[in-house]
């Protein structure tokens, strides 16, 4: 594979996570040849560290048309491209508190009204669906058509398909600035040189706000810390995605997701309440705390943020991803064993942290913003995998001047300022 940087590109996509990969794939399939620039390893920052649930359940009700479309799109991508372990295993949301039963019933009624098919199960019915879930839950909602994909392979498969259709991809190529002339995008500057382009898609997740700020585009996004544990491989024991009932909503709500990877690792993911990084100074581990002055290049986790010249007041994740919180480990092990007591003797192998990009209304920003030629595709809110094909479609339709199959207004970049003015 060539590693030199092209001098020009029809479109530059900044960010090689699942959103950038899905956008590249959608664009390339229409004949547009994008260049994907990733600051580290593809899918190495947020996407690869997530649990990649393809779900429509207990999400944003206004987004149900998009969610239904995108969930179906994932099944199509599996048929067309495959190679990313698509598994329509269904999702359980367990209920541990009495008042959450009514909350779940509310979600179920609204989703059924929109044509989806979730249902409420009593503990006996839950055990028929997930035999190892023997913990003292009160009930669980069940969304049978939800699925999971392998997050690493999904990024890889979409990028590979994009490359087969004319896209070019470069890892370890951090973009330091988007260049403009007048009110038009003209190119990007990277640590490996300059690329001329009239179109830039900013799919840089929690790093997007800092790249957009110098262009006068304020993206109200905060990085939020999510943490995961993985056990060693064990024989199949957990069949479904097992989540907690989302009763409070909002960016500060914690959530829990448990599943078993195809290779056998039991995975546990949680966002703790109050996990949002509030200011640049409050990052959990100061940059370089791990190996100050070290020349040691870590496993893609030492990002290249110091080279990014963003607005001083934008909030970005720490450039070196810190270890997980001990309290997270304690609480998540407790929760896991409360639900699945039979896992007590399984060994934990690894833990990790990722930063999600959280917006005030928990929706993506997907659309044009600022100078002509700039498109934003960021704001995963911790559930970016399911939406990525739809976000890729929105951006592709926008660039080509077509009408997307769902309401683009929900994702407009200026919606926060418009609301404030109203």
């Amino acid at each position, binding site marked *: 594979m060539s590693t030199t940087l092209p001098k020009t590109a029809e479109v530059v996509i900044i960010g090689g996570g699942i959103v950038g990969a899905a956008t590249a794939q959608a664009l390339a399939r229409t004949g547009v040849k994008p260049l994907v620039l990733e600051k580290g390893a593809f899918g190495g920052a947020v996407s690869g560290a997530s649990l990649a649930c393809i779900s429509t359940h207990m999400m944003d009700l206004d987004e149900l048309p998009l969610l239904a479309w995108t969930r179906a799109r994932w099944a199509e991508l599996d048929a067309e491209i495959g190679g990313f372990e698509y598994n329509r295993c269904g999702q359980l949301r367990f209920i*541990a508190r009495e008042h959450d039963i009514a909350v779940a019933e509310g979600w179920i009624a609204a989703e059924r009204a929109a044509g989806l098919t979730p249902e409420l199960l009593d503990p006996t019915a839950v055990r028929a669906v997930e035999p190892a879930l023997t913990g003292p839950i009160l009930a669980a909602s069940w969304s049978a058509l939800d699925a999971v994909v392998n997050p690493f392979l999904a*990024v890889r498969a979409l990028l590979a398909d994009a490359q087969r259709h004319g896209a070019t991809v470069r890892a*370890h190529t951090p973009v330091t600035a988007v260049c403009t002339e007048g009110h038009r995008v003209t190119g990007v500057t990277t640590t490996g040189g300059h690329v001329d382009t009239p179109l830039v898609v900013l799919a840089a997740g929690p790093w997007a706000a800092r790249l957009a700020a110098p262009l006068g585009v304020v993206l109200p996004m905060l990085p939020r810390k999510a943490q995961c544990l993985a056990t060693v491989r064990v024989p199949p024991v957990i069949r479904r995605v097992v989540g907690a009932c989302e009763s409070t909503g909002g960016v500060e709500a914690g959530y829990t997701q448990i599943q078993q990877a195809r290779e056998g690792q039991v995975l546990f993911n*949680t*966002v703790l309440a109050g996990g949002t990084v509030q200011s640049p100074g409050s990052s959990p581990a100061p940059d370089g*705390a791990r190996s100050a002055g070290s020349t040691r290049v870590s496993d893609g986790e030492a990002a290249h943020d110091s080279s990014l010249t963003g607005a001083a007041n934008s909030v970005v994740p720490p450039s070196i991803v810190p270890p997980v919180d001990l309290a997270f480990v304690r609480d998540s092990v407790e929760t896991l064993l409360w639900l699945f007591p039979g896992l*007590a003797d399984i060994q934990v192998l690894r833990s990790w942290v990722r930063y999600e990009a959280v917006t005030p209304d928990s929706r993506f920003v997907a659309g044009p913003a600022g100078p002509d030629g700039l498109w934003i595709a960021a704001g995963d809110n911790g559930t970016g995998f399911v939406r990525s094909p739809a976000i890729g479609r929105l951006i592709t339709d926008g660039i080509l001047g077509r009408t997307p199959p769902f309401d683009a207004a929900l994702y407009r970049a200026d919606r926060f300022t418009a609301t404030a003015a109203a």
Partner: protein
Amino acid sequence: MNSSTLSFAGKASTGHSHAPSKDPGVEPFSCDVCVVGAGAAGLSAAHAAAACGTSVVVLDAFPRPGGQYYMQPPAAPLASAKAMRQVTDGAALIAEAERAGARILPGREVWGVFPGGGQPERGTSAAAPSDAGGFTLHADGDGGAVRVTARAIVVATGAHDRVVPFPGWTLPGVMPPGAGQRLAKLSGTPPGRRTLIAGSGAFLLPVASSILKAGGEIAAIFEADNRVLAAAGIVARNPSIWGELARLARPLFRAEFEVHRGAVVVAALGDDRVRAARLAPLDTSGTPDLAQTFEIDDIDALLVGYGFRPHVELTDALGCTHDFDEAAGGWICRAAPDTFATTVAGVFAAGETTGIAGSRPALLSGRIAGLAAAESLGFGDTSGERRYLVERRRRPAAFAAALATHFTPPAGLAAAITNDTVMCRCEDVTAGEVRAALADGADDAFGAKLWSRAGMGLCQGRVCGFGLARLIAAERGIDPEEVGFNTPRLPLRPVKLSTMQAALKE
């Protein structure tokens, strides 16, 4: 301030206790200095620190203290004076450390280390000393789970074999030299009837010696480096090593085996077990010439390794600075020469963790670190003795460093790695799969890991990391240093959920 989704778990667990049938029982310890690793450096550090009056706890992963050099066999089937000497010297070191008051806890591997002596609070993330000072170490293993709170830590975790995969390296009978020696030393059984030893490094000779003593036969030693005269020059300038070298080389003079130079193993051959090895001469760029291979048959054991890599997971998890030095083993922990203090307050490192140098420099660096750790906690002024020790360490350390530059792994080893060669044994990933990930756009160890699972398994890249770095560097035409590495993450070793739960309980 628990999250809404997690708080009920704690509440409910009081009423419903299906969970962990047996409490693994975490035994708590508290001490001034916790030494991790009971080899030459660790034992020496423990003895020195304890003799200064500090309370010392020593954790070691293996069932018996001693490490690789002073390895203590389960019984005592000692076959020779040399073996006897290492075992008895080791036993004496252990006894001295214990007499000075050090508490040695073998059979426990550290899986977590955290700042402070208390229990987790929200936001405790980076493992750097908190205002309260000190550390908590969690360890587990056949010895039982322990929690050690300590005011200072000495990391003396040693090293492991530096391995580059080749076709057939997963056949029974093929192992790294360190593992082969461990087998011979611990069980008194050679790795096979007739063993071929190959690779690079001064260590190959003592491995042959251990195997002969255990009753095995050596087919030959193949040393990749072929600068005989330069190596001889280094030895000639260091009379202190002559005695040991003469002992190690005695079998050579007795014609018990031969040492050949300038060729490397490019394949292990055999069906149920290794029966032969294919070798190739190295060209001037350090690449095996696959057009000129030859075979050594009538073997049933093959030991191949290219020196050692320091265990730096613990110092990395603690936030210490590391430097890259290929000859000294790759990534090594930075330590001050007069104290062996790392860049993190309260953390000292000694022995191979700070660069591969062998047992003699390790004994001295351990002692320096032990004294400095005690002094840092207010147990006297040890600067005079440390100055003397630094001076005594200078020559053997310089000798080891000079020799090491001759035994850096040949640059072109990856050329022998065929696509069907398994790179990552834990996840069963072949070189072809790694190359395919690179072809799709991955360009470093982390990217290749995400797309191929190489290094994602049980050993977390400890075994395959070096070979993977070599393969990726060769494919991409870059230095192995640029390829990256696996960041250590909690737990540093796999640990049961129930043990974690018990260990982190308030």
